[in-house]
């Protein structure tokens, strides 16, 4: 077969170009640590990475939401602790003021103590977190209970509660319907019950005290239920948080498998490509040197 001068060079050049291309690609992988830096490197891995990144972004948002929600619920939890303590104190005070043996002074002292408890209860139900009311449902900017002329007005909040998504599958309540705790299905809310209790204590009306005590006890039950809901929500945040962390790790691992270079393999490949490149250069430099003209005198 004839070998033409030009095809010798063309073949050599294409060999060198091919080897150089491989070397550059291997170097890119090693220096960037990434197997896929543009979609055409591996189209399906690139598309897969889009989905994984979307999930990662969502997970991170859920984590942020879970953190702020947990803070809010912890505040709510301690407020409910206070409310329960207040209600318990009211019950024991009422019991201590009950009975025909109690003097008017003792009953007056009890009544005044309950008045103080009522003020504490009012401020607890008007508790805020970052400037929004916790027990006002979705009317987070409206004070749920306002006292004027010694009388606590009707519930000004909303019965619709506020929920927040803490994962793709779970949401928790953060803005509670205050009326569900203070009043429930009763005719009077807890503040009116306290007012009745104060009046009954002053009057030495034992039957009235008993009625009021029953009302306080029901309010206690409702507050306990609310606190249980908060506890369940906090638990859910913890569980979901753990799950989200697992998901994040798994997604990170998948993303890395899709996009990152296997370093050992990439470096081996680079060494091999470098050797091939040098061999191609060397072969061309050697073969291009010889010609019959060199031997003609």
């Amino acid at each position: 077969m004839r070998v033409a001068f030009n095809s010798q060079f063309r073949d050599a050049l294409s060999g060198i170009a091919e080897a150089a291309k491989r070397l550059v690609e291997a170097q890119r992988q090693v220096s960037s640590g990434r197997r896929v830096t543009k979609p055409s490197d591996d189209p399906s891995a690139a598309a897969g990475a889009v989905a994984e990144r979307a999930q990662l972004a969502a997970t991170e948002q859920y984590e942020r939401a879970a953190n702020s929600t947990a803070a809010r619920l912890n505040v709510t939890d301690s407020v409910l602790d206070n409310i329960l303590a207040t209600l318990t104190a009211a019950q024991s005070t009422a019991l201590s003021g009950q009975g025909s043996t109690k003097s008017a002074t003792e009953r007056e002292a009890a009544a005044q103590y309950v008045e103080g408890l009522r003020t504490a209860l009012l401020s607890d139900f008007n508790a805020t977190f970052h400037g929004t009311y916790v027990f006002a449902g979705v009317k987070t900017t409206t004070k749920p209970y306002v006292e004027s002329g010694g009388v606590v007005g009707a519930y000004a909040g909303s019965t619709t509660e506020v929920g927040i998504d803490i994962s793709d599958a779970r949401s928790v309540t953060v803005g509670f319907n205050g009326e569900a705790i203070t009043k429930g299905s009763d005719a009077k809310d807890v503040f009116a019950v306290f007012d009745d209790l104060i009046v009954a204590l002053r009057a030495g009306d034992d039957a009235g005290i008993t009625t009021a005590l029953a009302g306080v006890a029901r309010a206690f039950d409702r507050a306990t239920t609310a606190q249980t809901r908060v506890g369940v929500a906090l638990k859910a945040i913890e569980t979901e948080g753990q799950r989200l962390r697992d998901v994040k790790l798994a997604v990170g691992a998948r993303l890395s498998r899709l996009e990152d270079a296997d370093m050992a393999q990439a470096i081996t490949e680079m060494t091999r490509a470098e050797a091939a490149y040098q061999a191609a250069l060397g072969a061309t430099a050697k073969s291009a040197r010889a010609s019959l003209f060199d031997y003609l005198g």
Partner: protein
Amino acid sequence: MSDLFTSLTTASRALATHRMGIDIAGHNIANVNTPGYARRVVDLAARGPGTPAGAGSGVDVMTIRALRDRLLEERLNREAPLEGREAVVASALQVVETALGRPGESIDARLAAFFNSFAGLADDPTSRNLRHEVVLQGEAVAAAFRDMAGRLDRSRQDADREVRGLVDDINNLTTRIASLNQAIARTSAEASLHLRDEQGALVRRLAELVEISVVTRSDGGVDISAGQGRPLVVTANAYAIGVTSTAPSGFAALSINGATVTSELTGGRLGGHLYVRDTTIPAYQARLDEIAYELHQRVNALHTAGYDQSGVDAGDFFAFSTPPSGMSGAAAALIVHSTVAADPTKVAAASIAQPGDNQTARAIASLRDDRVLSGNTATFSDLWGQLVYRVGRDARSAADARDSRAEIVRQVESLRDNVSGVSLDEEAMNLLKFQRAYEANAKFFTIIDETLEMLLSLVR
């Protein structure tokens, strides 16, 4: 029986013939790097004796031929447009690929940040700052769509510019081929060797630009047609490809001899640019427009059903700067509605007229994971992933096709070079051969000369 003077003539003719051999070798060596050059060989023939029992009257140059393999050259002219086309598509798609942005920093990331900003607002629906954040992220995602649409559009315009430039090149080449046809037809086959070299090189260059079919005429000229038998060169006439800009894109429509051929020219670099301009990128644009349009529709549907921070019925969140026709043009026109952009309190978080409600914000945030697109099978990031996959796959297969086409062309070129290419070793050998022959003939000349001198001295 020939006389001595005839022998002298024979010797001098042989000297000239072998010098011609040396010249041809020199010519071949000189043109070793000339594209399209086919090596020349001298055909020698022995001359018969003038008289019946003569020794013959030496040697003569019969022809000087250029060694060509018609089949291989035709094969090259058929492969060249395929390579040209794939090379163009591959490099254009590389640009499109960079237009997609780096993984994780493109529209998908902007979309995620946008939905997350609504999730953040759901966390604290009365916040003015978070509303501001929502508007900023909305503007960022809209800008990402507009940028991307702009980049795709620029790629199409680049392709169009290339098309116009290539048409000029093609018209230039066909004009030169036509005038070569005229020159070749007027010249003898032997004298037109260099013209044919040039013709071959020009046809080859034309084949890289556009897919052509070539018919060689008996007078050595070539008739060239493209597309569905549209004439480019017939004898000495070249038919220029006409360019007219068409509304509304302003892209070039091509015509030959009055017939529109834009969709017929599929091969060569021209075909590659037309394919990128009219098929590949529009498909990506359609997909991008679909995502932008759906984002506009879905977010607005939820947003208008909600209430803003003041408890007033909210309006649209996204708008189009110019109304798209269908979905087409949606990405390029996507903006945040001017009312919302001017006053972030107009962002709706609530589905009822209460400041603390966050149902609308939550619903918009969960669009991120909802399979609301493509017949409720895909999320926004799925659609984006499909676009990324499609561009990546197209770019990949175009690059692969380019490499394999280039390899085929390289191998056919090697085959052709094996026939037509100059081998320096061979030419060195030829130089040696003709030089020795020249020396021997010079010796013969000297001998005849001496013989003649001896004869003349006898007379004296």
